[in-house]
């Protein structure tokens, strides 16, 4: 039996909404970066840094990093509760899923903090 205690929000609807919204933010972020790179073929490091240094880009980047965090967590939670369950891998399923969730959670959290540091502190 799989329980829902480790999912992010209170309800399936909430998770679903967060997933859509974070998806849109990520799409916007990647599109902007893609367009910028496309328009500035030969870019210097200084130029790149200036681009990320603008306040609006910093705000958007912070939103993107947070979005990656929650988006990945909800996605991974779905995958883990599909495949790492007592039904799929036997009696230890819940323990193994707990460990895997913890590893994913810690990794994601570390990347988020690191990412925030890069885009905000520079």
């Amino acid at each position, binding site marked *: 039996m799989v329980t829902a205690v480790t999912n992010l929000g209170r309800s*399936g609807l909430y998770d679903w909404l967060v997933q859509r919204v974070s998806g849109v933010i990520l799409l916007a972020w990647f599109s902007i970066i893609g367009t910028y790179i496309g328009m500035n073929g030969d870019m210097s490091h200084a130029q790149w840094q200036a681009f990320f240094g603008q306040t609006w880009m910093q705000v958007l980047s912070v939103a993107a990093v947070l979005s990656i965090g929650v988006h990945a967590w909800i996605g991974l939670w779905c995958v883990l509760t599909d495949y790492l369950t007592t039904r799929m891998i036997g009696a230890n399923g819940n323990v193994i899923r707990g460990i895997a969730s913890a590893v994913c959670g810690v990794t994601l959290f570390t990347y988020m903090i690191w990412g925030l540091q890069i885009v905000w502190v520079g």
Partner: protein
Amino acid sequence: MLQVSIYRYNPETDKEPYMQDLEVDTGGKDMMVLDVLELLKGEDPSITYRRSCREGVCGSDGMNINGKNGLACITHLSDTVKNNKLVLRPLPGLPVVRDLVVDMSLFYQQYEKIQPYLQNNTPAPAIERLQSPEERAKLDGLYECILCACCSTSCPSFWWNPDRFIGPAGLLQAYRFLADSRDTATEERLANLDDPFSVFRCHNIQNCVNVCPKGLNPTRAIGHIRTMLLQRGA
């Protein structure tokens, strides 16, 4: 001669399931898959499967035919046989009772969860609860389901969480009652579906739509439920 490969398993005598290869003389006729099974059973009465109406109404002979779930009684050989080969397996994802017969308990438990009956807390009128033709039309494409389980057993989300994900068949019926103008339990019904598993394990894979022998569209019904949950949450 048609080459038939059929899944065999008798838990009383077999250690493991196996595929048995047989040949059937169809006389060149484009019969139904169920007719082939009847011919085979004439030779070997131990071959086990469910069937009743033999015309796509009862939903008992859902099985996996050449890799696709369907009703044996309304699947023409010409629709499924390629290279003269017919492979018959039980519906995937459910425990096998014997040969092509699966244990449908999990499927029915999910159906039971959505409370598949009309609920109305207003006093019963003298004759009957009326519906306008427009209100009645909303039930088209929903009420025709025969609970054959072809859809739910083709859905990966149902394979992985058959105890918590309602599955396409159950959700189609959930929406059938959500859409019924005579039903007053809409709020309770939605509240029961708002966990991360019941509805939201559907990832729009659309296998269910692809296999439904009655041509129904569970994915669309699930989309409607999601919209109702959104409006309720807003």
